[in-house]
């Protein structure tokens, strides 16, 4: 559907990313997903296109501007490769550059951002703990001041890119209980006392590495605190907003792929003497999928516009995230029904799309948490 927000720049960018994905990613996703990783060169190729640079100053290798529509384009088009893990591996390494740009010291910015922008090195954001993810207020990992240093103890889990990343932004409690006692720290791979363990086999997102991280008396200089002491929660929440916009875009891209795969298959496959697409029951599925996708896309465009206007629509982002993952869940379900047995076989995109619904519906804030947050935003 044509959008009133389309500009020549966004259109060229969308075409570039679509082409990049179609020629450099999609042909290899089965291989990479089975191998459990993507080749690191892909980060460099993506970095050269500028996909990591939105919202980052040019001095640190970024683009010097931000555009939420371009963030959405990246999310949608990368998702259309059909393997969420590839997108997570590619995009996850960029997940913590926002707080670094906004809050980190000049030294940390110089050390981390140019390498991440160019796709040479990866980053990871460490918030979720074995005891809870969205329940940031009850974070248990803590950092205690010792002279000019902080000493971090605790553990983090479900950390995307946790094995391959070099730069980690870690949330830890520096103050009292609750939301007001959390700070962010920069930790580099190899710091004494910092260990990484890969998580066991996952339901989906195989190409994306996920880790549990342990901090045992990890000592960092006080200057490696990112932002002000005990003010980490706000930075975490701000970062979540854009991460969720990215996940809504992922849900949209996956839904679109479910639809295009369904149409392709329904035109090829013949049953009862005619192509599937000529059967009313299938046509109605296509209509329903398509209408829900249009609704999600329109919703997301409106959110992107508000983000660009500096009016972060927190409630709408929450609502669009659970709405979006439900659209995706519906489209994946219907796509698999249209494919029938063929869609149950590994090697078809819809098989993977169906499996990977859950991670998008849970990661970055589950549907349940999103609903709760949305209602809280209404002041209820």
């Amino acid at each position, binding site marked *: 559907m044509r959008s009133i927000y389309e500009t020549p720049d966004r259109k*060229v960018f969308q075409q570039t990313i679509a082409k990049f994905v179609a020629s450099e990613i999609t042909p290899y996703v089965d291989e990479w997903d089975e191998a459990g990783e993507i080749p690191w060169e892909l980060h460099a190729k993506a970095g*050269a296109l500028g996909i990591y640079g939105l919202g980052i100053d040019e001095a640190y290798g970024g683009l010097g501007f931000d555009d939420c529509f371009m963030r959405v384009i990246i999310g949608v088009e990368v998702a259309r490769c059909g393997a969420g893990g590839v997108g997570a591996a590619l995009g996850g390494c960029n997940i913590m550059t926002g707080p670094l740009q906004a809050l980190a010291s000049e030294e940390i910015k110089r050390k981390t951002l140019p390498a991440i922008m160019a796709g040479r090195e990866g980053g990871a954001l460490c918030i979720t703990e074995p005891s809870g993810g969205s329940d940031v207020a009850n974070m248990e990992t803590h950092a205690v001041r010792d002279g000019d240093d902080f000493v971090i103890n605790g553990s983090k889990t479900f950390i995307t890119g946790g094995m391959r990343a070099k730069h980690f932004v870690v949330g830890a409690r520096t103050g009292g209980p609750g939301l007001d006692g959390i700070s962010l720290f920069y930790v580099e791979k190899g710091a004494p006392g910092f260990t990484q363990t890969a998580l066991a086999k996952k339901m989906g997102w195989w190409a994306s590495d996920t880790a549990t991280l342990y901090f045992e008396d990890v000592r960092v200089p006080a200057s490696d605190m990112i932002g002000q002491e005990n003010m980490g929660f706000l930075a975490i929440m701000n970062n979540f907003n854009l991460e969720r916009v990215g996940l809504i875009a992922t849900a949209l891209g996956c839904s679109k792929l479910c639809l295009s795969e369904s149409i392709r298959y329904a035109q090829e496959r013949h049953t009862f003497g005619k192509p599937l697409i000529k059967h009313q029951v299938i046509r109605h599925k296509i209509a329903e999928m398509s209408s829900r996708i249009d609704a999600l896309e329109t919703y997301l465009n409106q959110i992107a516009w508000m983000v660009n206007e500096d009016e972060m629509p927190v409630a709408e982002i929450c609502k669009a995230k659970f709405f979006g993952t439900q659209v995706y869940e519906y489209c994946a379900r219907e796509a698999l029904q249209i494919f029938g047995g063929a869609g149950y076989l590994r090697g078809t995109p819809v098989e993977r799309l169906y499996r990977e619904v859950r991670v998008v519906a849970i990661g970055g804030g589950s549907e349940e948490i999103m609903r709760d947050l949305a209602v809280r935003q209404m002041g209820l």
Partner: protein
Amino acid sequence: MKILVAIKRVPDAETTIKVNPEGTGIVNAGVKWVVNPFCEIAIEEALKIKETKGDVEVVLVTVGRSESQEQLRTGLAMGADRAILVTAENLDTTGVSRVLAKIVEKESPDVVFLGKQAIDDDSNEVGQMLAQRLGWAQACYISEFNMADDAKSAQVVREIDGGMRTDKVMLPAIITADLRLNEPRYASLPGIMKARKKPLEEIDGASLGVDLEPKIIIKSMAPPPARAAGRLVESVDELINALKNEAKVL
């Protein structure tokens, strides 16, 4: 040095093309438009020369509707310096070559690159016609291009039937790019943002004083006949019999 690259807006190769009910052309609605892939290769070659030689201006030109700006913008985002859009509709290859000859006169480039053909009409004529109009040398279907240090000539490898042929061509010349010449780069986001500030000049085709009337009239257009489904045969004999007597290819 100045390099002129002529490019064309064409439907994406993945787009399903439908012939309109009148049979006079294709249905434009819903078609995704892109830079002709061979033209992208032509742009890439010009950009490579710019990168190795330094002081080179890469100018893009296209002839078509104002929407073709999008494709020029893509080329600018890849790294070309400026672009010219000659607005005109329903031209055939003769008309396009006349327009391009005028632009070459105006710009006096040292070399002109084109794609060997556009993937829509597959005419494979414009480069050759342009060379004829200008009285320039032409080297078509190039898979390798090496400019001499003095930029007075170039050594090219041409893909011809049954092999490769190496030619020396005196510049200025018309060069048309074949598939294997290079792998075109992507338009990066920094490139897209820079392209905003690059000049894009629009010229009304009618103002050039050349004959734009098509010499080729499309009488009718029809999709290829639908292919019948294949059939499994029981034996080699049956296959040979079918190839001989039904398909009549043996």
